[in-house]
């Protein structure tokens, strides 16, 4: 396990600086957008979760998210350029699963850090919003901002419900999406490096299941739309099954040295 820890730490050393920059960009840009949004007078009456989405903060998160996906792919490919460290990794006196899981865990930590920074940004943003709005003279008989506003923002925002699910099924679904996304990104690189191009169908299938799952989580509470039955458990099970297959196939390809 010590060797595994060393490997994970080594992998993460190549990523953490960029992750830190992304985290800072995320937090600073979102606060900037929120402050700009609050200065527009009607938004002082707005709920924080609606202000958060109206100001474009979710777009900032998505940009950082895709940048992080690019970073992970870049990191995986960097083993094949210049020093070609992939050969070193494959010839280490360690089970090859260690190499696979060390990358997986380090990529997971990157995404987890991004999600944690989004939560920190929400806390800071709400603090700024609360201080700014309560310091203004708005109306004498209206209590501003909304009581217990941050908690309600986490509960009533479709975006935060995906990151911070408060129910059991929602938590399992978000966990499945998180694990599956990391495994699928690395699996795509493995398939390309091992020239198994037909296996991209699994990558597309899993990404489709992830998107379907996220859309279903949001739509299931859109009351004014057509009624949709609850099949999140089916989607979550499907995501877990394809993820298990992806991990199994990735390990198989790595053990066979198909990735070089």
């Amino acid at each position: 396990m010590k060797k595994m820890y060393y490997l994970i730490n080594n992998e993460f050393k190549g990523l953490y600086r960029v992750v830190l920059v992304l985290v800072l960009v995320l937090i600073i840009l979102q606060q900037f957008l929120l402050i700009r949004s609050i200065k527009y007078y009607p938004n002082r009456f707005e709920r924080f979760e609606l202000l958060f989405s109206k100001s474009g903060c979710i777009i900032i998160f998505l940009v950082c998210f895709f940048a992080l996906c690019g970073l992970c792919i870049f990191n995986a490919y960097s083993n094949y350029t210049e020093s070609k460290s992939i050969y070193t990794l494959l010839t280490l006196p360690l089970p090859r699963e260690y190499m696979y899981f060390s990358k997986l865990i380090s990529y997971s930590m990157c995404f987890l850090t991004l999600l944690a920074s989004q939560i920190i940004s929400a806390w800071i943003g709400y603090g700024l919003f609360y201080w700014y709005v309560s310091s203004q003279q708005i109306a004498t008989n209206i209590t501003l901002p909304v009581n217990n506003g941050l908690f309600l923002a986490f509960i009533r925002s479709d975006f935060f419900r995906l990151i911070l699910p408060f129910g059991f099924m929602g938590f399992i679904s978000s966990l499945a999406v998180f694990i599956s996304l990391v495994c699928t990104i690395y699996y795509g690189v493995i398939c390309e490096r091992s020239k198994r191009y037909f296996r991209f169908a699994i990558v597309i299938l899993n990404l489709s299941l992830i998107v379907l799952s996220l859309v279903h989580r949001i739509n299931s509470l859109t009351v004014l739309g057509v009624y949709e039955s609850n099949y999140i458990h089916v989607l979550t099970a499907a995501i877990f099954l394809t993820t298990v297959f992806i991990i199994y196939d990735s390990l198989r390809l790595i053990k066979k040295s198909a990735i070089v």
Partner: protein
Amino acid sequence: MNRLRNNIILVFSISAVLVFILTYAFMAAAKDNSTFFLKDLEGNRSALKDITISGYLEDRYHGRYFEMKNSILNSKFVYYQHQNDIAMLGNLQNLANAIKHDEFVYTYQYEYEISPGSKTAEYPKENSPIMNSLSIRKSAVFTDSIDIYARISKRYVDFSSPHFDTIYFSPGLRYTRSSMEIEFNKDVYGDVSANAEYQKIHNIIYNLNRETFPVPLPKMAMTILNNELYFSIVCTKEYSGRNGIYKAVNFEPWWHDSKYKGTVDTITSFDLDKTNMEVLGLDAVNDNLILLLFEDNLFKARLYNTEGQQLDELVFTDILSEKGLPEYQSFINNNCLNIYLKYENENNFTENIILSIQVEDENMSLKHKIKKNTSQETYLYNITSKGNMLYVIALTKDRDEIKIYPSEWQAPGHFIICAFKTEKDRTYPVYKGELVTDAADDYSRNLYNNDTSFGYNYYDYRQFELVNVR
């Protein structure tokens, strides 16, 4: 520094996990931080000790289930993950033109036809942009008499099937005027070219122009008794012909090729030409039907059995229909029919009347009666009679508070609980309280946001639902 770099994964992972743990701990602690308490406005809270009040304060994301038992209020946070979790959606109440029973919903609508033999005058619509079309001709038809037909549709509540069954029924109701002022839009489809020799009509459709109809259009009072649907037509005294209490016996699929679909039994019938009668509502209590009506402008409650035999009648000489029919809501608990009548007066005052009628065997008796003028808008959740006590739960909106919002339905309200006691035929208030919450904060955004062009989602605002008293 080297040590930090050699354990960088641990630093990041512990920090990230800690953020999540602390946030979840905050949410677990904050879920019960909302404002939620009973404030006594008048009287003693012990007046509520014999009843249990329960309900939900919910929007589409979460709810708070509350229960007040022995005058003690408890509440619990509920997190919603799917529409099925939303309490109110599983138990639709107060539908506008429908009634729900088991897995079905019954919806009514009326259709209007020119009475056979009535005077008519037809005028082509000269300015219609499609006047030169070879397949449609539009004209306006004026008449002085129309027949009214009722269509009742029966479908599944959850729309699990697009199929619906229907009843199309002619009660014999009519509206007649002295002059031809009622307008129908007539559309003739087919080959309607100017050359009469080649004209071939496929279809003629008449649509009533409701703006030319001088009296309120009819509504329908529906009730369920022993799994059967009973209904009566709510209309003002200007209508003529026949009205009555009817029972829906058989619904037919909508695609059946017959005009009068389904089967309807007439329980009892009234000749509107011989009586000055306006039906207001129909309810089922025990195994009997109570028809609420105005006859010769006096408010009456009549008890019928399902064979149409009148068993009893109560007359209220101080409740009149001279200024129009009041708004009406009914709540039934045990063998008691609780009625709410609302009259709009001048100067934005409303007169609220609450009656509790007890039904025992084949007799009715008046238990409680309240008459009150108020300047507030009142939306009733429940009226329950227990012993000599009457409990009224309503949402009230103060007109002065409403003024700062763009419209009444975009303004918050107050959840009020009232208790009344009846002694020696006199009903008087003994308690008034308000369930104070922070749900009104949801409406603050409406103070400056009047843009409803994308729609107004009722479920984005916390509302009291499924308020029950037992």
